[in-house]
């Protein structure tokens, strides 16, 4: 038991306790949390900063507003409903089309307007928000993802998660939906996470639950060796989210849209640690390299260059605890 703990420490694996105390409590000021916890607010900030996000169709703020939904999406057969305070992808409904008067979700379930409005009213009443507070529902563009991951996902939108430490991208993975995850790119719900070499943007092996896997469980295609397009742009967007949020330890979720290119989906102030298993690398080692050598006032282009240089897979070196 202690032997494994020592070996994990030698690999620089970051545990939840250490992440919470040494990184989140130290670098994420409480006052900045609303910026990322409220997806509507972070979307607006991103637009101001000139960072691309999925276009907003409308916001449903009250029970009364639900009736406006058909008008909002009249010209958009596909759209996404997202509670502004939802955590870990809870409460997100992706509508991929219509079938008569009914809405068809990405997983093929048909919902009539009443079912959809019940879901929205639950979301407004805070069913999906932390602490059950009143919420608003964002209606936005459904991302048309680039076919690059088509062989590696079962429905849904695969997204790229990048951990950004004080402006420096330190680790990345792509989250691939599976049949089990219901088309959602969330590792909790059964999606596959595949590590990405930060220097090149090429995928590594994947993780499903706690197991390392080499092939996608539904499509059976090998996970490793896929080049993520526009990798430099993705890294630059991620790095700029630091200035945008003011948070020193964040997870940036980016999707690749056919039409708009890389789009920031959301920011996460408490990003999960499964990314380490996906990369088969500890985060702590990279965080310590940043703390030792990085200039935290550098321009984002320099920061990306530093990350690409230092974090070429596999990153070696000893870790002090």
């Amino acid at each position: 038991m202690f032997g494994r703990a020592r070996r994990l420490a030698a690999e620089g694996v970051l545990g939840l306790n250490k992440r919470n105390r040494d990184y989140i409590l130290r670098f994420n000021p409480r006052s900045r949390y609303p910026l990322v916890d409220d997806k509507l607010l972070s979307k607006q900030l991103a637009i101001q900063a000139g960072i691309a996000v999925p276009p907003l169709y409308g916001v449903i703020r009250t029970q009364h507003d639900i009736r406006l939904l058909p008008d909002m999406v009249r010209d958009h057969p596909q759209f996404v409903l997202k509670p502004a305070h939802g955590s870990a992808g809870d409460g997100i409904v992706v509508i991929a089309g219509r079938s008569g008067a009914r809405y068809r979700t990405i997983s093929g379930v048909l919902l009539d307007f009443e079912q959809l409005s019940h879901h929205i009213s639950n979301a407004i009443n805070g069913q999906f928000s932390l602490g059950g507070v009143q919420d608003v529902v964002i209606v936005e563009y459904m991302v048309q993802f680039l076919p690059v991951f088509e062989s590696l996902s079962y429905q849904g939108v695969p997204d790229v998660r990048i951990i950004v430490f004080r402006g420096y991208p330190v680790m990345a993975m792509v989250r691939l939906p599976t049949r089990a995850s219901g088309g959602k790119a969330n590792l909790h719900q059964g999606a596959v996470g595949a590590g990405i070499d930060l220097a090149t943007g090429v995928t590594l092996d994947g993780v499903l639950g706690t197991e390392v896997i080499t092939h996608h469980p539904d499509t059976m295609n090998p996970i490793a060796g896929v080049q993520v397009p526009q990798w430099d742009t993705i890294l630059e967007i991620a790095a700029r989210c630091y200035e945008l949020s003011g948070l020193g330890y964040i997870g940036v979720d980016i999707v690749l849209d056919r039409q708009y290119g890389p789009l920031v989906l959301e920011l996460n102030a408490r990003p999960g640690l499964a990314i380490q298993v996906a990369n088969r690398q500890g985060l702590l080692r990279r965080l310590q390299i940043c703390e030792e050598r990085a200039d935290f006032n550098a321009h984002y282009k320099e920061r990306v260059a530093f990350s690409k240089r230092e974090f070429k897979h596999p990153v070696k070196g000893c870790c002090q605890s």
Partner: protein
Amino acid sequence: MNNKHIYILAALLTAFSIGLFVYKAKVLGFPVRPQQQTTIWNIEAALRFHPGPAAVKATLRIPSLTPGYSIFDENFISRGFGVTTSSAPAGREAQWSVRQASGPQTMYYRAIVYRDDTRLAQDTTPPFPSPPELDEASQVALEALIAEVRRQSADVASFTVQLLRRINQGDQDPYVRVFLRRSDMPTDSAQLATLFLAGAQIPARVAHGIFLRSAPGPVQPESILEVHDGVQWLYFNPRTLQQGLPPNFLIWWRGDEPIAEVEGGFDLEVTLGVQESLLPAMAVAERRAEASGSHAVDFSLFALPIATQAVYRVLLMVPIGALMIVLLRNFVGVKTFGTFMPVLIALAFRETRLVWGIVLFAVIVSLGLLIRFYLEKLRLLLVPRLTCVLTVVVLLMVAISILSEKLGLQPGLSIALFPMVILAMTIERMSIVWEERGASEAIQEGVGSVLVAAIAYVVMGIAWLEHLVFVFPELLLLVVVATLLAGRYTGYRLLELRRFKGVLPEYTPQ
């Protein structure tokens, strides 16, 4: 806030907590174990006499200054007599009186004494005694005796021993013989010694008392000679010449008078009895703290009404249960519904006992979940839906209670103690997790919650722990210290060792 700050704070809290604990346990004798008992002695004096035709007044000397022992409780029993106690030169006296009595009379004095080493003979220094008034022959004998004894001794103690030795020789000693022949002189060697010591200007008195034995039964009072050497009282056994107060000797009264007298009655007979027994240590400690002027008991939980004490007995265990949650969540990594929900469930388990508690919890939550899934179809708004689930939970509890009563299953009744709001929230949270993340995640968290509740219940059920935090609430500061230190723990959680195993280089992918 650096680590040093936390460590200093933790050290200060620990020192304060342990210090107060040791003071209360060692000095005040607060019991460290539950049901700890202290040896006590029930002492009893029975007065029997036949009353005369007129008013009767019986006097009994009762213990007051008892070095090494304290009186826990005392009472006076008689039939139809009025009783008063008063201070007298010999100590305390109890006086029974009645205007008229017929037939043989018996009255009792009963007291409970316990060992109390803090109790010393805190007497004022007595004045020098006046020399005894004697006729010339006796005076000469006394002076010669004193001169001779003084020559053979170095201090008050050796003087007394020497003197007692000569008194015990009786007729063989030429000087003592003079006194023994006289009828107005006391025959008791201790009393005779006080007379001689008065001649030598040494304050002395006779103390009478009993030996506290473990075997019950009547005891004979014995005398002991107390001599003041100018600083403190010294004790001498007049027969064995042993110096010092025997540890099991309880001084009952002092002076030359008998233990009891009766006016207006005859055939007085006094019997003393002693019986050893045990008393809860806490009761004795309370009395001792009171006697020593400490406010530890006034400001302890024992000062509260009994019903409130019972509530605090439970409440003080909640931090212990919460500490278990800290350990299981931050050190093991168990997932639960809600942070402190398992503690509240564990509190309910106290009444239902573990197995029944888990069964009842499972029954309510699964029935609640079924109904919650049905409600989901009805599409209700959140707050009305929660209220509905809560109402259903209450109804389920009622139904289970009534059903188990009809079936004669006693534990079913205690379901009423489950925290229903917590249950309703658990059902709601579980159904959401069920829908959002699948049944396995929901069941996993549900089982985790029950597991943590069961562990918290077992720990909170340790009687010794419950006793400790109730008698020594300052020990909860140690829980604060533990949380301070746990809050700075940055190592892995036990379950993370498995979770991150894929990072290890020796791990082979499937």
